[in-house]
């Protein structure tokens, strides 16, 4: 095994006394599609925030011998860890091509930055190809459909050459067809990368997950293959218990699908 894995030990995030993450241990290996599930408020997004320097945390998060908790966000990105956000955030005023090109700018010299772009760099072409947006290259990113924006974000991570991709609900709001395409895309690019997906849709998780980690109340509840998780009694309890407390109308689609998982 090489060093290209993300190691998290005893990670804790404390919001003025409220422990949003409470002593989480995780090892995320290369070449696996790793899914992070759990009810709302379980701390999934906060975990990603902590690893990418958005919220202060204690404990350990290490990638290639680099202590991520003492590194600034943009340095973490430079170390090869990229992420997306729940709401797709692309630069709406720039074209698809410009969005991808801008993502590849980290290692450019100051002089290159001061010049205009000439032609299309090969890695940008490749990313366009991979995420299937070649035909829309000159369109402003703002006019893209929701799913296309998510793909564009993944494309930007590719251009960034992110070795670890932390994706926050990439298929939320996508059609079944788009989900399938996204799943295949993740499968393709995941072979030589570490990919972590936060997801609620259990169908999607079942179809593509190699490893699933269930989080609840800031702690890791269970970890294993899809089958192992589904058989786990504590996981079932958490989801069932949640069902009793919440009224049907307020329950999100994500919660419904997780509840499904509990029964299966």
């Amino acid at each position, binding site marked *: 095994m090489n060093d290209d894995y993300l190691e998290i030990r005893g990670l804790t995030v404390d*919001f*003025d006394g409220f422990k949003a993450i409470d002593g989480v241990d995780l090892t995320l290996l290369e070449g696996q599609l790793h899914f992070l599930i759990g009810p709302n408020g379980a701390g999934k997004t906060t975990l990603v925030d902590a690893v990418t320097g*958005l919220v202060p945390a204690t404990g350990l998060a290490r990638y290639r011998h680099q202590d991520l908790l003492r590194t600034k966000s943009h340095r973490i990105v430079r170390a090869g860890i990229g992420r997306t*956000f*729940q*709401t797709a*955030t692309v630069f709406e005023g720039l074209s698809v091509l410009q969005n991808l090109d801008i993502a590849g700018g980290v290692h450019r010299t100051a002089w290159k930055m001061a010049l205009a772009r000439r032609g299309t760099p090969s890695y940008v072409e490749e990313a366009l190809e991979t995420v299937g947006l070649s035909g829309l290259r000159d369109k402003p990113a703002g006019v893209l459909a929701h799913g296309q924006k998510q793909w564009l974000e993944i494309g930007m991570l590719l251009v960034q050459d992110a070795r670890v991709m932390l994706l926050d609900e990439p298929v939320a709001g996508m059609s079944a067809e788009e989900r399938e395409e996204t799943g295949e895309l993740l499968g393709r690019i995941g072979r030589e990368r570490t990919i972590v997906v936060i997801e609620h849709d259990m169908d999607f998780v079942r179809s593509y997950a190699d490893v699933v980690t269930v989080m609840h109340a800031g702690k890791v509840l269970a970890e294993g293959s899809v089958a192992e998780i589904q058989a786990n009694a504590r996981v079932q309890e958490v989801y069932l218990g949640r069902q009793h407390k919440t009224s049907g109308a307020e329950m999100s689609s994500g919660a419904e699908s997780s509840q499904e998982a509990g029964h299966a």
Partner: protein
Amino acid sequence: MDAFTTPLLAGTATGALLLIAALGLALTFGQMGVINMAHGEFLMAGAYTTYLTQQVVTNTDLSIIVALPAAFLVAGALGLLLEVAIIQWMYRRPLDTLLVTVGVSLLLQQLAKDVFGAQGDPVHTPGWLDGNIDVFGYHWPYRQMFTILLAVGALAALGALLKQTSYGRRIRATVQNRDLAETVGVSTRVVDRVTFFVGSGLAGVGGVAVSLISGTNPNLGTTYIISAFLVVVAGGLGQLQGTVIAAFAVGIVTAFLTDWFNSSMAQVLTFALVVIFLQIRPQGLFTVRTRGLA
């Protein structure tokens, strides 16, 4: 002893004045994201209201008491007018409200000049405020104590409004989550207007206190607006306690610096201190934590 008490007491009074001016700003800035550069001119409106009140109510002892609610209403009405005529079209463009209100501020200054004349008008201090008490050699003017009481009163009234009344709950709900407040039936339009009225009215009350220091003049607002904004910035948004501490801190620190150096250096150094302070606490003293990518 007086080398310590004089700046402390005088600075507390300056801080109280800054607090009255900054409370309204913190309210409108915190809730609506509006940066009202014409707030200083509402102070000026309060000062001119005091002058006009003294023309009508010639009993000086009484007139200042009458002037307080009058100034609150006049400045509040001006604020309401500003909200209805201009600001309501510009929510979600906070930086642009800053520039629009710069224009409003210029208009109001010129208007005051044309109506009242460029020469300032006198405001007479009532007899019961015209005196002092000897505190370790500092002849502490009653007027400064009155300013501090006024600030405490304004703060208490505002606190009661926010904590005890249904409007207060609506205001707090709107500050915390505008969209959610709307969905549960709070008319944020009405809440915004009430907030603007109250915030501007407070500036009017501050104007009464200012008029006791320097009478009236058309440029009176510009003297206080920047300091008041620095207080809001240093205090942080969303919590009045930050504004309170920052106001008194700026007032007292400026007074000590004035004592040690001079007024000009005190102004410059206070600015430098605020910038250094923001290095330590970039979001100000107190801030409401929000989730997600801002």
